[in-house]
């Protein structure tokens, strides 16, 4: 029978509260149930008890009498009476523990010394010593593992240092190389300028004799002729004048590329006149018209930029597959250009070079030399660019967080796989995580490297990958990799706790540090 009536109940509780005696400073004091030795003095039987928050004084008999008097729950450390109380398990031989009061006599053994179930149906056994033994063995094993792993870790650190030094040296060298290459490039640029001047001079005699005024006049003449020619084309009704309507039929004049030639656009080209004669066209309008005709012929490049920008806009919404889209974009651009040519009925100027003229030996030598030097210049330019790229890459690497001692450096660039029944998973530190179905199909990215995200005490115990492939009707996949000490690098387990949120477990010697608080904790306490 549990119930003894109010009076018996109280006395039982009091009795229970003197369940054990502990020795403190050489004197035997009755220990109040659920209170650690360090706090026993607060629960002295010699005086009334004061709630630890100071709110109330109680006779000592009200301690652990299975009724919560103190607002802070401090009068019932050994019963379940206070909703906000806690119970102290001594757990002699093992780790001491506070449990919520609600777990006292709740039919579940929470304390290894069985002290929390002193009046419930369940029979708990004191297994603290066994737990201690297990924990000791476990700690021993972990220490062993940490020790073993630490050897490799130290190698990693050395390797990391080496890599770091190497990288730094490499970078320094590259920077020198770069400066050098820049000098070479400049040198060759000068050579190129010189030879090209000579070349121009040498080729002069193969051109019509230069008369600058005449040439200018001729150019004007040419231009006027060209203008006249276009006037004839544009004057489609052969009325001797070009009108707004006539321009509106030509896509060439769609300045803003909105698909139609507005009146304003037409007026721009017609010197702000509704109608224009051939002379007026040559004198005033041609200057405005010509660039657009050239644009149409592909002589100018700016059109390309315009379209590129336009395409960039589209890409924003499309997301990941930028490269593919770029290629497609170019296709679209080409098609666009081709269609414009079709419209004007003119073929694009072919790149095919005309038959090279025959030069005398000396000129030919100069031309050859010029072309050789141009090649050398281009080569210098290219190697400068390559150096630039390499420097950038290396700089990125040296800035990467390889751990406090560069212990993760050697993992950069490696990938580790794990197979379950359906999938092969891959984890590439500093790269990405992915999943491949064994039944074929393409690889699915579970995320790209984001950063280390472990708690500040153990930053390198967790790595986050995000921006993976987007789930159907859902977010982009992400992956959280939990790392722990192991004597070899091994992807142990992969799960998907929530849709599109993956979790990996990875063992690596890089985390085996016997000095660190985390792996040494249990050892210390025992």
């Amino acid at each position, binding site marked *: 029978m*549990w*119930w003894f*009536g*109010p*009076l018996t*109940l*109280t006395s039982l509780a009091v009795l229970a509260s003197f369940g054990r005696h502990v020795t403190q400073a050489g004197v035997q004091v009755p220990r109040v149930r659920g209170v650690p030795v360090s706090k026993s003095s607060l629960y002295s039987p010699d005086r009334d008890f004061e709630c630890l928050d100071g709110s109330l004084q109680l006779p000592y008999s009200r301690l652990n*009498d*299975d*009724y919560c*008097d103190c607002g802070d729950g401090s009068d019932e450390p050994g019963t*379940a*009476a206070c*909703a906000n109380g806690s119970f102290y398990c001594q757990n002699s031989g093992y780790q001491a523990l506070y449990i*919520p009061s*609600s*777990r006292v006599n*709740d*039919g*579940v053994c929470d304390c290894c010394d069985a002290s929390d179930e002193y009046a419930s149906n369940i029979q708990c056994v004191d297994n603290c010593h066994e737990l201690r033994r297990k924990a000791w063995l476990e700690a021993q094993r972990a220490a062993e593992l940490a020790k073993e792993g630490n050897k490799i870790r130290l190698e990693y650190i050395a390797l990391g240092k080496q890599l770091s030094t190497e990288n730094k040296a490499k970078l320094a060298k590259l920077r020198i190389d770069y400066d050098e290459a820049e000098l070479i490039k400049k040198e060759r640029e000068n050579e190129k300028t010189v030879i090209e001047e000579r070349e121009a001079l040498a080729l002069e005699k193969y051109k019509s004799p230069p008369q600058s005024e005449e040439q200018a006049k001729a150019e004007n003449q040419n231009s006027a002729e060209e203008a006249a020619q276009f006037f004839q084309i544009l004057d489609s009704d052969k009325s001797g004048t070009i009108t707004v309507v006539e321009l509106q039929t030509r896509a060439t004049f769609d300045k803003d590329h909105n698909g139609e030639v507005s009146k304003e656009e037409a007026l721009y080209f017609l010197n702000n006149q509704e109608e224009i004669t051939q002379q007026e066209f040559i004198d005033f309008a041609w200057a405005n018209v010509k660039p657009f005709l050239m644009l149409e012929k592909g002589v100018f490049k700016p059109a390309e930029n315009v379209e590129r920008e336009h395409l960039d806009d589209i890409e924003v919404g499309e997301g990941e597959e930028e490269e593919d889209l770029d290629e497609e974009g170019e296709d679209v651009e080409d098609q666009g250009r081709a269609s414009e040519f079709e419209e004007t009925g003119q073929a694009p100027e072919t790149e095919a070079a005309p038959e090279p003229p025959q030069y005398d030996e000396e000129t030919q030598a100069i031309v050859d030399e010029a072309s050789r030097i141009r090649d050398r210049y281009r080569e210098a330019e290219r190697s400068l660019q390559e150096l630039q790229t390499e420097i950038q890459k290396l700089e990125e690497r040296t800035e990467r967080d390889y751990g406090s001692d560069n212990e993760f450096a050697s993992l950069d660039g490696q990938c580790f796989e794990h197979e379950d*029944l*359906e999938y092969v998973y891959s984890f590439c530190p500093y790269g990405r995580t992915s999943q491949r*179905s064994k039944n074929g199909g393409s690889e699915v990215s579970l995320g790209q490297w984001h950063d280390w995200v472990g708690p500040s005490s153990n930053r390198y115990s967790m790595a986050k990958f995000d921006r993976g492939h987007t*789930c*159907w*009707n*859902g977010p982009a*996949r992400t992956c959280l990799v939990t790392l722990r000490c192991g004597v070899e690098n091994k992807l142990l387990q992969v*799960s*998907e*706790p*929530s*849709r*599109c*949120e993956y979790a990996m477990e990875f063992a690596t010697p890089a985390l085996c540090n016997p000095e660190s608080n985390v792996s040494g904790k249990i050892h210390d306490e025992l």
Partner: protein
Amino acid sequence: MALYLRLGIIIFFVSMVGSVPRENFKTCEQSSFCRRCRKVEHGKTAYNLLLNTTTQNDSTLYVELYNKDTGVYYNVEFTALKHDLFRLHINEKSPLYPRYEVEYALQDHPQVSQLIVVEKTATYISVANGKNKAILYASPFKIDVYSGNQLVISTNARGLMRFEHLRHKPEPKPEQPGHADQSEQTDQSEPAEQLDQQDQTVQQDQKNEKIENVELNDSEFPGDGAENDPGAWEENFKNHHDAKPYGPEAIALDFSFPGAEHVYGIPEHADSFALKSTKQSEPYRLYNLDVFEYEINERMSLYGAVPVLYAHGKKATSGIFWHNAAETWIDIVSSADNNVVQSIVNFVSGTAKKPQVDTHFMSESGVIDVFFLLGPQPMDTFQQYAQITGSAHLPPIFSLAYHQSRWNYNDQEDVQQISDNYDKYDLPLDVIWLDIEYTDGKKYFTWDERKFPNPLDMVRNLTSKGRKLVVIIDPHIKRDSNYFLHNDATDNGYYVKHRDGKDYEGWCWPGASSYLDFFDPTVRKYYMGLYDLSKFKGTTSDVHIWNDMNEPSVFNGPEVTMPKDLVHYGGWEHRDVHNINGLVYTMATYDALFMRSGGTLRPFILSRSFFAGSQRFAAVWTGDNAADWEHLRISFPMCLSLSISGISFCGADVGGFFKNPESELFIRWYQAGIWLPFFRQHSHIETKRREPWTFNNDVLNIVRESLRLRYSFLPYWYTLFREHEVNGSPVLRPIWAHYPTESESFAIDDQILVGDAILVKSVYQQSITEVPVYFPGEGKVAWYEIETMEKYGAASLVQIPVTLHKIPVFQREGSIVPRKMRVRRSSVAMKNDPYTLVVIANQQGLAMGNLYIDDEASFEYRHGKYLYLRLLFKNNKLTSTMLQKLANYNTRSWLERVNIVNPPKGITKATIYSKALGKADLEVKYNPSNNVLTIRKPGINMGEEWIIDLIA
């Protein structure tokens, strides 16, 4: 990531993303019988009672009814039942074939009472049943039912009755196709016994007889026009064909409720509690369907159907129970719908028209079988309904505690981790649930052995913490020749069949699936055996069952369910029994779990589909809701509707099934969810994890407080469920259940009463800082906020400030609520814990409450092993007396404290008297901050009777 889902299922989902696919479900106009019934003209009924045929026995009046348009005769039975009910039953006098009469919905045969013929004239007969009476008018046919002297229900007053007699397909071909169909019908009903074949023979004979009659009728009578409907003999919807071999067979009847301001009931709809007029919209539909991503403010069908409707006005409450399991549509017109002209007429005439609601029930097949519930008080009416369809057995207490579910916990480590985390974060939890993925390829009664290699260990780990496991078992069976259940069902003919006798094959979670025919007692017996612990490996008596998809859901079927022309046991078409399919399934599961424990332990079953009477077998939840504020809001009205319709054990997925709740919505949902009887968090497989610790510490702390509040009220919930079992009182109640004259409350459905002592207001708007609360009692009843004990109620409508930490909840003056303030990790761990009584006296110094105690798990209480205490506070004395002197239960629980809110002044101490202990002094302590006097530790065992005196 849906990679592993079968392609077919992916397609199914893709086609339905976004919102409810309304076009996949019929409108009334697309349903031929609804179309026909809705077109019946007012005031032109073709039916006359033939009063000269009247006969009677002690309880029933028998009289014939005649349709002058068709020449068809009907039998009318009008019966007096105990507890203020009448029953009206109408069937064809000699139907061509038997018409379906619903089985399983009624608890037993309703108890009859004495029917007295008061008066009989040439034009009417009036009969009495105790203080209530009814007048049956001959021509036009009409039945007026009176509660006392007040006319409350008028039947066929608008003349919308329609009873389509069974007939032959009117094609004068030599080989009548309708005839041929019937022969097939006979041939394929293999499982039917000899008796059934005899029936068929009789039908054949009747048919042959009638052929000439029909032709004769054609010439004599104008007919009911059913033949002219293109859907009379076959019907197509989308790609689905319904053969309709029996042709038109609809029934319909109208009921007017004079004096009623609103009507309620007929769940399940995601709509307001007070039903809306359907004058400008579709009628309310009852046809159990798996509606993907259902929306609120809809009269569309959902997963379940209870065709009970209540009418309430200031003066009376009444109701009708339409005992029919076929597809049903209900039109509602209220006096508020009167057009402007009528309003002006009323205004000019100076007599505001008396409020009235008119309803019109239309069903596809079966017979007319109506129960009139005559109140007069709301609670009387609810209890009358429970008298005929039963109440829930007392749930095991764990099922009233907190449930954590998800589609899906991935494996047994996952389950262990969830349980561990509940301990780690110091949150109480009683049950973890496993959705369909625990099975081996959706083959129920099997385990995915890779993810759950040791289910028994998993269960043992849960039960060692006082927790339980619920696993899902669905009614569709995977067509897989390596699956024992499929093979057994195929070999023994256990599946529902096509008209040609072949097994029906549909598409559900496992892919190609067939469906056990639970209408066949042999199948039920087989199914019950599957739950035996020796057969269903990995389960123990601590594993309980979730029955989902039992509408039944058929992904590729018409309206996502079974074709109506499929054939069940006894030759009945699916059309006849559709709405009760889900009930029959849970009935079998209930019997199975009952048998599993040898009848010692109370089963717990959760069902998505339901019908009238389902409360006897299962709890229900409101199905696949979504993580938005509107769905949180609708959870209260939906459960209120269910609660007054007999199904008290109702809840909604906390957090919303689809989509991800943001933290404020999540918190509000917990705060509201703890006040619905069934309290489970559940979520879709595509959602993020949402256990309480997955948000942040603030959320975790607030949710913990909500959970603790729920657990602290478990004694109150448990007592309410016991009282529901005994007298049929709904656990959740609308305000008007106890304040029937306060018309301002008639349409309030965001406030509920839990029992009669707790008033809860749901908060369902984002970032809101105050909410209006209606305090019933017309300023004469005080309501105390349960935490601060702040007093309200002097004004009826008050803006109450709210913070994120709680929603407004109040305890009524005059009540005593039993609670347990030591919240532990599960309800099992709290079983022996002491009680706290919260006493709030009214102005007369009176307060009252009840407390029920038993072993919380077994059926021992049915053998008198329980305590039922009446707690009464009067004249500064609190007494506990046994309401059931013969019952007894050896409890270890004792009385920890009594909190007296707004106590009498100057109390300095208390004394307790009991037979066993004599007299003892008790300390009291007054807390001025909340105006509560606490009696310290009376310590008395709850099994004692006692008196506590407050002493000034």
